[in-house]
Structure formats: C-alpha cells, structure tokens
C-alpha cells in the first residue's frame, strides 16, 4: 500500500520536526548562529506540538504499515514536542558559554525528537527500531556533547561510552527477540503471539518476548538492567540528562505499552511473573540506591528507576482488569512524570552551566532563602515525585493505586507502598537541605545568561503541576478517550 496525500496531514507533526532539524542543519551550514539555531529548533518544535494538538481530535489513521497516527500517539507527540521545546529552552542558557561549537546540539535535539515521535506512533518493529536508534544515536551525541570543552569534566565521555556500549547491546537483545518473533509470526508488525503459536513451543515465544522486553527494560532502566542509569545521568550535561529522563523514557514506554497490549504477552503467566519481579526489583533497588545518595542527578536517576517500576505495575494491571483504567494510569503517569522531571532537572539546569554543574545536594543548601522562587518550584516538583497531594504526582500515584487495586495486585501494591515510603526520605532530604539556612550567603551563580525564558518555562511547568494536581478532570477525560485506542 503506498502513501496517499491524505496521509500527509496526519504526518504533519513528524514532518515539521524533521523540517526543523533539516532547516537547523542548513542554517548551521550557511552561517553559525547560536541564537538562530536555537530559536529555529524551539519554534519548529512548538509548531509541531501545536499541529499535533490540532490534529488530535478525530485523527486515527494507519499511515503505511509503519506508522499509526491515532489520538494516543498524537497526545504523546504533543507531550514530546513540548518537552523537547522546553529542554531546548533550558539548554540555551546552559550551553551559551560552552567553549566549543554549540549549534549542533540543537540539531541533535531535533533529530532525537524525530526518533521519539516515530516511536510513539509505531506499531511495527521496523519503525520502532528506526525511531529508537535515531533517538539513541543523537542521545549519544548529546550526552558526549561538551566533550571538547576543557573545563567540563571527563564525565561526558565516560557516560557516553557506557551508554553507547550498553544500549547497543540492549538493542541487540531487542533485535534478536524481534527476529525470533518474526520467525514465528511472519510479520514485523506488532501482532498477537497467541494466534500464531502453531507448532512452536510456548517457551520459544516467551523467550522471544522476554528478549524484546529485556531490551526495552534496559532503555527504561528497569532493574536489573538499571545500572547504567546513574552514571549516564550524572555524566551527561543537564539538558541531555533531562531529555534522556523524560522523552527517552516516555517514548520507550509507549512502545512497551503498545507492544505488550498487542502481542498479548501477559497471557503467559511466566511473563507476568517476570514483569512483576522486574517491577518489585526496580522499586526497591531504585529507592534503596537513592536513599543516602548525595548527588542530585544520581538521586533523580535512581528515583526514575523506581518510577518506571511503579509504571510497570499499571502495565501488569492492564491485563487483569477490564476497562482502560490501567492504560489511563500509564498515560497520566507518563504525563505527570515528564512534567515533574522536566521541572526538577529544569531547576538544576537553571542554576547550572556547562562550566560548572550544581548537582550536589549541598549546593542547594538554603536555596529557600536565596532563591525562594526556584526553591518553591523545586520543592513542589520533589513532593510531586513523592506523590503528595496538590501536585500532579499524587493524581498519578492515585491512578496507579487504582489500577493495582482493581486488579488485586496486593504484592505489587505493598512494594509500591514500601518504595514510596523509602522514597519520601530522600526527596525530603533535598527539601530539608534547601530549608536549612545557607552557611554562605552568596547567591547561586546562575547560568551564563540569566534567561527569563527558562524561568517562564519553569513557571509553566509549575502551573501545570498544580492545576493537574488540583483539577485534573479535563485531562482525565481526554486520557480516557485516547486510551481507548490502545
């Protein structure tokens, strides 16, 4: 089946993002201008987000076997493009005084976004791999970006190498699994493994499923595939970390969700067991690892491990309960998680610069009295990560609890409770550190240019955090409708 003109409209967001990247590339080719490249990227992403938002109601179209543009994928396209735009805005001041070429960064960012968008709208192995690798490739670059700068530490290099090697291996797992599945089903599109089980042992298909799951689990940094996360998070420049932590995770999770739902993987009890095990392990490992950690980026890395564990609970739940609550749970949680992490990392990157990053908790001592505004936002983001009411994080956790209760996953819920309990501790540690009066009254050295834009982004995120925390009803409604498409 070949593409018709009507397919172009649904594809607009992707095309826009691609155009942005290309344009940026061209512009760099013509004349290096940091501000220019940045603004092009930002506008492009904004346009894409808006476009996706406009298309969202009433679009549900399979464009070639590779891409499915339905409300669900568009919803996430919006999220991803917006998030990417925010990250771009954060990156601008952060990189502004990097002693190296800065423009390509935005190029990479744009390309990575393409990959992410493709991932969320793919129900086909090829497009998945395509998107995933586009994303990863550009992420390697983003992670290693400040490589040449003398004053930025050796960490980016190390982080990048680690990430590259391991994630390549993980891709290997995934690809091999896909191959096995393909060998069994005869199609590269996501499809149920139950129907085509003819003549081949169940163990085989389980193995195939688990290989793919392992690959995905690695990208989602789920235990026991989580170990790379803290190092990469710590090593990368903050905007890259942010990207990795938000868009990277969200896009990957959408793929996981679609794959699990379509392939009916959870019909195999053993797969359920393994997933549950992974979830519990991630929750415990993530929270325990973060417990006494002093490096902010590592803490957030570990906490992201735990959060992915929480999300996995909802995925498992989706199999047991009728109705789409668990899907909605995943969706809302991802939305919430993107907002929270953007906020948390955003504050960090606002106070940091490519020269010197403030990623030790101690750096934030007395922030409450030195920069109340930032501190307030940061606190709310952390509380939201901890799942305290008035914030979106609470609603998200509420969803997960609901899904868990609905499916009666008591063990997982217990893990969830314990994990959140431990989690509170290290989130509050940071908060308390911000509360304790600073020993030195010197204000935080803000990043190269004290940019209003990133502050306004923080403000937006803050508002989102509270609004979605206090009156989520409209978003709930949207999510309810789009979740029907999974």
């Amino acid at each position, binding site marked *: 089946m070949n593409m018709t003109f009507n397919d172009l409209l649904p594809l607009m967001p992707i095309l826009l993002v691609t155009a942005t990247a290309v344009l940026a590339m061209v512009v760099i080719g013509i004349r290096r201008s940091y501000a220019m490249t940045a603004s092009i990227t930002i506008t492009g992403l904004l346009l894409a987000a808006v476009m996706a938002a406009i298309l969202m109601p009433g679009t549900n179209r399979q464009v070639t076997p590779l891409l499915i543009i339905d409300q669900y994928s568009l919803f996430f396209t919006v999220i991803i493009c917006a998030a990417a735009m925010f990250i771009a805005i954060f990156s601008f001041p952060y990189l502004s005084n990097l002693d190296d070429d800065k423009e390509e960064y935005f190029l990479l960012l744009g390309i990575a976004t393409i990959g992410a968008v493709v991932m969320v709208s793919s129900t086909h192995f090829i497009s998945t791999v395509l998107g995933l690798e586009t994303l990863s490739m550009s992420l390697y670059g983003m992670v290693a970006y400040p490589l040449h700068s003398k004053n930025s530490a050796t960490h980016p290099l190390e982080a990048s190498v680690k990430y590259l090697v391991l994630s390549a291996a993980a891709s290997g797992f995934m690809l091999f699994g896909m191959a096995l599945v393909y060998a069994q089903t005869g199609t590269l599109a996501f499809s149920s493994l139950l129907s085509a089980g003819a003549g081949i042992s169940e163990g085989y298909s389980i193995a195939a499923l688990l290989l793919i799951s392992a690959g995905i689990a690695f990208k989602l940094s789920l235990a026991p595939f989580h170990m790379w996360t803290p190092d990469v998070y710590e090593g990368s420049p903050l905007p890259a970390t942010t990207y990795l932590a938000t868009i990277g995770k969200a896009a990957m999770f959408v793929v996981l969700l679609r794959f699990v739902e379509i392939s009916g993987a959870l019909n195999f009890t053993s797969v359920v067991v393994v997933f549950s095990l992974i979830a519990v392990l991630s929750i415990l490992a993530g929270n325990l690892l973060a417990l006494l950690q002093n490096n902010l980026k590592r803490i957030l890395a570990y906490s992201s491990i735990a959060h992915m564990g929480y999300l996995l609970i909802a995925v498992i739940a989706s199999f047991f309960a009728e109705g789409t609550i668990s899907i909605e749970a995943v969706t809302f949680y991802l939305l919430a998680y993107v907002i929270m992490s953007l906020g948390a990392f955003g504050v960090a990157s606002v106070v940091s610069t490519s020269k010197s990053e403030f990623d030790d908790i101690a750096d934030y001592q007395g922030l409450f*009295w030195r920069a109340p505004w930032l501190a307030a936002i940061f606190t709310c983001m952390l*509380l939201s990560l901890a799942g*305290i*009411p*008035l914030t979106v994080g*609470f609603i998200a956790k*509420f969803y997960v*609890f*609901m899904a868990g*209760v*609905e499916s009666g996953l008591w063990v997982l*819920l217990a893990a*969830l*409770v314990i994990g*959140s*309990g431990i989690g*509170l*501790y290290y989130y*509050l540690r940071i*908060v*308390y550190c911000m*509360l304790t009066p600073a020993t030195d009254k010197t204000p935080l050295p803000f990043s190269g240019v004290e940019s209003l834009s990133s502050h306004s982004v923080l403000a937006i995120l803050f508002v989102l955090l509270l609004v979605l925390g206090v*009156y*989520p*009803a409209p978003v*709930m*409604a949207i999510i*309810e409708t789009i979740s029907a498409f999974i």
Partner: protein
Amino acid sequence: MILVVLIGVLFVGGVIAWISERINPDYPRLIALVAVLLDLLLMVILLSGSAGSEAQWLASIDAQWMPRFGISFYLAADGLSGLLLLLTAFLGVIAVGSAWDEIKDRPGFFYFNLLWTLAGVLGVFTALDLFLFFFFWEVMLIPMYFIIAIWGHENKNYAAMKFFLFTQVSGMLMLISILVLAYFHYIQFGTFSFNYHDLLAVSTGGELEMWVMLGFFIAFTTKLPSIPFHSWLPDAHSQAPTAGSVILAGVLLKTGAYGLIRFAVPLFPEASLAFAPVAMTLAAISILYCAKVAFAQSDIKRLIAYTSVSHMGFVTLGIYAWNEQALQGAVMTMLAHGLSAAALFMLAGSLQHRIHTRNMQDMGGFWPKVPHMATVALFFSIAALGMPGLGNFIGEFLALLGAFQSNITLTVISAFGLIFASVYSLWVIQKIFHGEFASTNFDDSQLTDLSRREMVYFGAMMLGLVWMGMYPQTFLDMSAAALGGLLAGSQELVTSVVQN
C-alpha cells in the same frame, strides 16, 4: 458554601500573610490572627444558627470534581464536625498567639504554613468524599512538616522526617482501602464513587473487610496516635515550635479520632465489631504504657507528648465501645484534651523560651518566681489527671462508663490510667515548681512570669475547660444528633448482617 469560605479564608489568608512579609514583617501575624478570628466568628454563626435544630447536617456543599472516578467536592458539617471545627479555630487563635513573639525569622512563611495546616484540618473535619478527605488528610501534613523542619529545635530534621514518614506511609494504606471501597462500589453498583453515603452502602464481605478496615485503622491510630504507632509523636512534639505543638496536640491528633468515629467504624460495622476487643486492648495498653513512659521522661515536651498518647487511649476505648456514653465521652475527651494538652505545651514552650531548656532535671522551685505560671500549670495538670469539674473528667468518665458496658476487663484495666495520670501530673508540678529554687543549671535572668497577653490565652482555655466540666451539656447536645445518627446507622447494618 460557608464551609468553602471557612477553608478558603485560611488558604487565602496564608498566601496573603506570606506575601505581606515583604511589606512589613509584622503584618503576617496580624493577617493570620484576623483570618483565624474571622473563621472563629463564622463558625460561631454557623453553629449558633443551627443550635437546637434536629437536622444532622448543618451545612454542606457538593460539586463535581473528577467525574471519571465519581469523585466530588463534597463538604458537609454535622454537630460532631462542628465541635471539632470550633476547637480548631479556637486553637488556631491560641496558636497564632503563642507564636506571636516566639517566631521572629521568616514570619510570613510560618503563618502561611500555620494557616494551611489549619485549613487542611478543617477540610478533614468536613470532607465527606473519601478522596477529598484523603486529599486534605495529606495536605495538612506538608505545612506541618515545614513548621517542624524550619522553626523546630535541635533535632528538627529527624523529628519532621519521622512525623512525615509515619503519617504518609500509614496514609497510603488508607488510600488503598479507600480505593478498594470505591472499586467495590463499582462492582456492586456499576459506578465508581467516593461519596461517604454511597460507600456506607457498600459491603465488602468477610475476610477482605477486615483488611480494608485495618487500612483505615492503622492510618487513624498512627495519627491518634496509639500503641504501637505512637513513637513519632514524642519527637515531633519535643522538636516543634510551641505553635506547632499546640496545633499538633490540639487538633491534628483529633483528626485521627474523628476518622475512627466517622469512617473506620461506620464503614465497616461488622469488622469493627470483631476488631473492637483488639482495638480496646491497644487503647488500654496505650493508656498504661505511655503513662508509665511519660513518668520516666525528663524532657517536659516528651513527657506531655506521652501523656497525650495515654489520654487518646481513652478516646479509642470510647470509640470502640460504640455506645452513646462512650462516644460522647470520646468526643469530650478530644475537646478537653485539645485544650489541656495545648495549654501544657504552651507552658513548656514559654518555659523553654525563658530558660532555654526543656530538661526538668535542671528545674525546680519556680513557684515563687513565677506564681501565675505555676498556678496555670497546676490547673492544667490537675485537668490532665481528670479532676471532676473540668472537661477532661467528663470525657474520660463518660468514655469509661460507656466502655464498661461493652468490655468490663479492659475498662477496669484502663481505669488504672487514672492513677498513673495522677502520678506523672503531680510529679511534673513537684519537679518544676515545688522544691528549692534551682537556678544553678541555667541562666534564670529571663525567667519572668506570664505576660498579660499569655494570661489571656490561658484564661480563655481555663474557661473552656471549666465550661466543659461544669456544663458539658452545651457540647453533648451539639454532637448528640450526629453521634446518634452514626450509632443508628451502624446498628442497622450489623443487625441486617446478623439476620442475613
């Protein structure tokens, strides 16, 4: 609508107070005072307006909130809530007063937290949608955490953290229970609902009901607190600033008891019936054990904290006896203890403010130096040991009287708490105010008698206690209708179950 105003005033007032600090650091406390006074006024109007009316619900508002889950913004107040609202507002005023001079740094943020805590508490006392209830339940924690963590004493981080973790984790268990209820409503009636009245109709059968009930029970007894979930309280209290302790002891603990009365028992009548012996045993243990531990303390605030646990034991006892006298007793104890404990903490606070120690070993013979304070302290410790004619007696007497009708053994055991209470209360007086004046251990230059303003607060609380003690009918009548309704409801359910 008035309920929304009640809560809104505090939320808004808090924000204004915070901002106003930029203009003038004296504004926040004024604004806070105005806000709480306004609330108090509104409540008096609300309650006096409904005095004598047989209607169970004095005021209510019900608006859609999250239709997806049948969650609605449903506030309503009956006599029971009314009393507790009154207590909250009253102690709010007291707390602002006690912070008036003590809180010097960052007053704006302090009063913001204070008012928001109070707002959360009001919400808890009026929310009839379980989601909303949980929402407020958690909302009141964070500002409290800040109060302890910022304005607390030497070991504030630990205390604040402990307080937060205990309440949070137990809260999550309650959340699960709430969700199970809502889900069962979905199963039995086809729609999600967190509405209190709807959920009353839900019957989670047998084994599960006990577990679900336990979710609530643990959350509430952690807040109450009761053995074995009490150990956060001494730390929180000893570290919190005076105003914090006042709110904590006076109001926050009462939310737990309120939860038990309003939710834990009525929602799960049979399970509660089966569980009552255990709960009452826990209560008895709390009463005796914590009275004993209290006696051993040398830090005044720790001591008072433990006595609080001991006194709240009577509340649990009364609640799980679940008959009219017992419930009224529990409510009276909540009110009376709210005043007496708050007052004792204020005294401890003003002592610490003056001599910068809470260690009783360093004190002694203060009576001649601070006669007024001594008299006030004497009054409140007498109240605490349950002297007839003061509120605490009415509460504990009724609670025991009621409890006796449902469980003789445990009531008799708990009654020994009266003896222990006299032991520690009198010991405090002896140690601090009697004996030879011990000024060697601290700088007593600051040791001045209560100021006129302080006397006003204490006077007000004394009056309150005497009123409760000499003419409790005012309060008994107010809560009678509400409690009657609860009793009747659960009675029906139990009987119906027994019949089926």
